[in-house]
């Protein structure tokens, strides 16, 4: 497993609740979104079975933080080799869920 953490500046998200999207299975991942401390930043912890793709992760996550106001979010990812398309989709789903009222 490869593990790293990224902190990105971001606009406050206004998250209401914790959200979990996705399942850890081959080519897939789970994304856990929680409220963190710093409203002006988004921290993302990645745990991935695919080694050597940190640069791609950083690009995907930077685009996510650009796409959404992800400030104040603490995101944790368990990944089993998902492609960037799937990663982006799960991030978007988790982000949307964490801002909704209903589970």
């Amino acid at each position, binding site marked *: 497993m490869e593990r790293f953490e990224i902190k990105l500046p971001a606009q406050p998200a206004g998250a209401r609740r914790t959200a979990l999207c996705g399942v850890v299975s081959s080519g897939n991942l789970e994304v856990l979104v929680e409220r963190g401390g710093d409203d002006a930043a988004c921290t993302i912890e990645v745990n991935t079975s695919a080694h050597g793709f940190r*640069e791609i992760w950083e690009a995907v996550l930077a685009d996510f933080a650009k796409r959404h106001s992800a400030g104040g979010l603490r995101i944790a990812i368990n990944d089993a080799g998902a492609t960037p*398309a799937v990663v982006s989709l799960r991030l978007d789903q988790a982000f949307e869920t964490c801002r909704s009222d209903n589970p």
Partner: protein
Amino acid sequence: MYLADSPGRAWDTRARNRAHRLERAASLANGRNVAPENIVALLEAVIEPGDRLCVEGNNQKQADFLSRALVQTDPSRVRDLHLVQSVLALPEHVDVIERGQVARIDFSFSGPQAGRLARLVESGRITIGAIHTYLELFARYFVDLTPQVALVAAQAADRHGNLYTGPNTEDTPAIVEATAFKGGIVIAQVNEIVDTLPRVDIPADWVDFTVAAPTPHYVEPLFTRDPALITETQVLTAMIAIKGLYAEYGITRLNHGIGFDTAAIELLLPTYAAELGLKGKICTHWALNPHPTLIPAIEAGFVQSVHSFGSEVGMERYVAARPDVFFIGPDGSMRSNRAFCQAAGHYACDLFIGSTLQLDLNGNSSTATKGRIAGFGGAPNMGADARGRRHASQAWLRAGREGRGDNPMPRGQKLVAQIVETFREHMEPAFVERLDAWDLAESAGMDLPPVMIYGEDLTHIITEEGIANLLLCRTPEEREQAIRGVAGYTPVGMARDRRAVENLRDRGIIRRPEDLDIDPRLATRDLLAARNIKDLVHASGGLYDPPKKFRNW
């Protein structure tokens, strides 16, 4: 006055040679009928050293019994063969090379045997004439690669030797016609010999011998894609294809590849495309095998006509029950024909869309990888502009206008699209700076790198990042940025010029899902008209009978 240079020359040497061969075989057959236990001896009797031999097989139907017989022949008698055949797919096709009985091969596709074949080529044990497309190879059967002996497969024969090929006619007519009319010998393996055939696909006087094989010929269900395995990303790319390509050009005549990406499109026709009001406006006429995933679209009334290269295992009853759509004989079963369907796909379709393993910065695509000599079968004929086409259609004309700009002579162009995810499994990028095909060409000493679709024929690329219209690119630089612009997070995509790409987006050359008003979060499997094989069976009214390996009930 013209004088023949050899007044006494005989003009019937082929016929005489044929007569000798038949004479040698006479004691081994009862008229046309050969007992299975005599087949090896028969092959030894009729095949001569140096013969061009065609063993019928495609990626579907296989003359497997005759292939097994061939590798039992005496290598000192059956030798120096020149194989001229569509595929080297069965282990026996390569075994006969390893046994030293073959000097040269001309073929189209070697899928499962690609690795073994590459090793034989590298060790110098075999010479490849060329790797053709199916249509090219059939064409050469009638020019300079006519078989002396053809070993074919049919469903049944009658006592006279007429053949019934059933729904899987495939390559048989092309092979038999070339062989039988140029003094060759045609030997057919059949699943059964009956008194009366449902219909005659090959007349008896084109066939020299029939043998009832102990087991029915093998047919691979190659075109069955289980909808359960279609991913959300494939649903998204299918939505982009339907809205950004099919609807845009009003594509009615088309051919699909066999991947999950195109299966997703087929399954989105009765749902997503219908909601967009596209029924009757797109996808009405097809050159396509009977894909099980097309059933819901057929049942929804989307499809008016389908002509097929071959059949598909389990689809026989469904196809027979939809004679308005498929090509059905008076006996009630389908007739396929690979040569005609290849011609139809090349000349009569406005769109080919399929997938690939690699795409380079010029839009060349290939499924070739180092250490495997596989060939492409029919894909290059589908995925190429038909330069000889002279009839117009709305989609063809628009593509021509977009691609040829201000050219004063009006002319259309075929739409050729590749639909890929930016990364395949295990994070293999689909976009590369250099195709593996170059390495393969070098290591195997090929004249040409094996390119499936040339960049100059490619008009659109669809990925989860959006659709790139290469027709509208005016310079090589624009074209490269358009490709990079839909290449996502692959190294090729990351190296894009962001400003140039935004420019292309403004001009509609690149269209993102949001530019097409598509919300990726709505790209769920719920949109599929069938979510699994059982749904397809239900959609067919119980007529589709899927192979065992695709069932979970």
